[in-house]
């Protein structure tokens, strides 16, 4: 299954666990895990909250994936 590795690498760069990030954006860890596993498409509001915490743009975290990223 495809995974959103950009969120994982974004929080790894800030030394944040899934729990830390989910607490920071106000969702459950199950939801953050589902977003990373691409089992759930978050609303734009939640996407922006994740971007704000990780200091990235929407395009950097949720933009269209290149062929290299999907492999």
């Amino acid at each position: 299954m495809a995974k959103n590795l950009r969120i994982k690498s974004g929080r790894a760069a800030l030394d944040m666990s899934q729990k830390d990030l989910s607490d920071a954006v106000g969702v459950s860890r199950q939801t953050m895990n589902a977003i990373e596993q691409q089992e759930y498409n978050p609303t734009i509001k939640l996407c922006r909250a994740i971007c704000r915490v990780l200091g990235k743009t929407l395009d950097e975290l949720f933009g269209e994936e290149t062929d290299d990223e999907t492999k």
Partner: protein
Amino acid sequence: MKQSNFDERQLWLRGEVFKHSLLLMGFLLLLNTFLIDNGIILVEGIWANILIISVTSSFANIEMALNGAINFDDKRMTLFSAMMGIPGFIVLVLHFIEGESIIMNNQLSKNGAFLIMSIFFIAIPIAYFIKRNQYIKNIID
């Protein structure tokens, strides 16, 4: 406005669960009515409707636990799920102590209906604690 304890994904999942439960309840009620109309009575007296409500609500709770639409960090939810299993367990134990028949006159008796309800109620904490243990195991990433 009161803030919800659930996030957007959990609220969406809970909506899906309620939709499934409503469809299941409607289907079971229609099936029961159809069978009664054709002279086939599956469950004694009024217990068919109680059984349908219990089975549907248990199904909803189990689906919510399995889909992660419950906050596993919330201690109240753990207590609630454990409490749901207790009456089911008591009824199951009483059934085996009394040893009454679950089939009477080719129908499921009141005791039989209670036995099925108790099994469904016991399944709620089982589903909850299985998913909660998986959640705790995966907490280190």
